[in-house]
């Protein structure tokens, strides 16, 4: 059984590597489709950068050779040099900015998962009563209002609040302390939280009427134990399965939140690179994000196996 688990992990990782290769290839050819010479960009005119790049990427060689060079560099974990910032490695950029995005993202995922499970369970237990209606109304709002609007409105709210109180309760923008993280993380996790609440609610409703909960009642198990041992654990399973894709939603949602809240994360850096057409940074970050998301999906799958014995043991 233990060996089966190890084999499963290996298989998933191998699949992950192949997927990352596919992402890298798609990225390479998509970027090579861009009209014009990437080096004829007026921002990349420093001769030093130009010479460095030509040698490094074999830009005078056929496309396929360039592709091989690119894959070789990637395999060594080298994403290249920025086209617009002299002598700046894409790796350094990622190393510097990704931890910020990751912190924000992890916090948002925690908010979303905890909130989604809590609110979802609550609405199911209070089905068709006041708390259910109120929470579900907020959930529909959370799903329907775009994240940048929520971000902007929460900033507006913070400004008003700080003015009303007469001092800065929570910072409106920027990065540094835990207090800087709270509002952006909440905003970032909000739509996922709303989605998870809905999912948790319907899965909990299914569980509430399920045969095994009836069995537990027929055993005289007290309601609190039925909730924690029988209902919650089983209702969480579908929530965990969508956590992988939702991490992707939160990661890309980070772009907007980082922009609005002026957070020096990789997402904001990526958006800036896109606006400046900084090819290596765009490609590097895309492949990096792709690999990260593939890895996260694997992690969540393994986590799911840990929670659900049916998956773990088969």
């Amino acid at each position: 059984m233990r060996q089966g688990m190890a084999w499963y992990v290996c298989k998933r990782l191998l699949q992950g590597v192949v997927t990352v290769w596919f992402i890298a290839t798609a990225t390479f050819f998509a970027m090579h489709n861009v009209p014009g010479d990437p080096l004829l960009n007026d921002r990349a005119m420093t001769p030093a950068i130009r010479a460095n790049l030509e040698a490094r990427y074999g830009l005078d060689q056929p496309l396929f050779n360039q592709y091989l060079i690119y894959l070789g560099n990637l395999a060594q974990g080298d994403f290249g040099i920025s086209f617009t910032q002299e002598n700046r490695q894409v790796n350094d950029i990622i190393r510097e900015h990704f931890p910020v995005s990751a912190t924000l993202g992890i916090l948002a995922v925690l908010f979303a998962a905890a909130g989604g499970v809590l609110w979802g369970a609550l609405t199911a237990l209070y089905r068709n009563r006041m708390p259910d209606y109120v929470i579900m109304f907020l959930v529909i709002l959370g799903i329907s209002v775009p994240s940048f609007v929520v971000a902007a409105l929460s900033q507006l709210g913070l400004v008003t609040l700080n003015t009303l109180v007469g001092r800065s309760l929570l910072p409106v923008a920027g990065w540094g302390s835990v207090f800087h993280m709270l509002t952006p993380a909440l905003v970032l996790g909000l739509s996922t939280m709303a989605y998870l609440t809905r999912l948790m609610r319907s899965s909990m409703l299914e569980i509430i009427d399920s045969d095994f909960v009836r069995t537990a009642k027929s055993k005289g198990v007290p309601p609190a134990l039925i909730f924690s041992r029988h209902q919650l654990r089983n209702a969480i399973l579908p929530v965990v399965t969508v956590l992988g894709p939702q991490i992707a939603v939160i990661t890309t949602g980070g772009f907007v939140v980082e922009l609005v809240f002026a957070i020096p994360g990789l997402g904001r850096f990526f958006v800036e690179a896109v606006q400046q057409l900084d090819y290596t940074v765009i490609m590097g970050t895309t492949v990096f994000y792709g690999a990260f998301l593939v890895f996260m999906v694997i992690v969540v799958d393994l986590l799911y196996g840990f929670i659900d014995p049916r998956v773990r043991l088969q």
Partner: protein
Amino acid sequence: MTAAPLLQVEDLHVEFATHGGTVRAVRGVDFSVDSNRTLAIVGESGCGKSVSVQSIMGLIPVPPGRIGPGSALLRGQEILGNNVVNGRDVRGSEIGMIFQDPMTSLNPTMTIGAQIAEPLQVHRGYGAGRAREEAIRLLESCRIPEARKRAGQYPFEFSGGMLQRAMIAMAISCKPALLIADEPTTALDVTIQSQILDLMRDLQRETGMAIILITHDLGVVARMADEVLVMYAGEVVEKGGVDDVFYRSAHPYTLGLKAAMPSNRDDSAQVLTPIDGSPPDLFAPPGGCGYFARCPYAMQACEDNHPESFDLHADHFARCWLHHEDCDVEATDVHRTTASE
């Protein structure tokens, strides 16, 4: 009549409020069961047999369900609506229950052992280790091989028959005085059915518990029951000892059920006769006999007059106008002629 019966149910009513109106699922059901005895409740789907026992066990969600009027006395103590006697939940301790589909009736993310141990921890205050040892012993007593290993497994690793044994082990873990079995063999194949029924009977012999067996399989009834309750459209239409109900059937519906049952005995050439039509709409139960529209013996009186319960022999009742003193049609006679046509 000696002492009060173990469980006495009187005039039980259960309703459900739905978007379409109120479904009157159970309308005045009486029965009782004693230690060492087995009561079978038979009837087709939707006749209210499961709802009756689930209401006694407090398993009907309220709302949309509504229970009452009526009473269910366990050793003379009312359990309808609260299930608590002397500050203790009788469910799982005094009354154990097993369900139709063992595959879905067990928690998929808990080990079998933990689920069997749960009532012991809740009602007896056993510690985890002691409860686990007891669970293994219970599995053994329900004839599950390698009980120790099995106790650590999850429901999906069990077969249907094994799961139903585990369910029984769970239901009898606190040595209940009454075991309610809600179609315990319907989801199983025939050989397993037989083993499960044997197991239940042996356990009854060992512990002296009473059994309420809900089924629509008359073969199971004949094999297991001491008394039989025939339900139709939320009412008891016939009640009596197993021999009375089988050999001296007094209600046309019971006759219909028997005619619809396959048999390999003497008159095996007999054609299976289905009961035509479907039960009445319980949103608005008919004023007269619920079986009127489907009954081959229907009479003028049946359409608008709700039948009384007629006492036929000792402890044998039927709710049918055929047994009125002014009526001279004999149900069984008519049945024989129609069935052999």
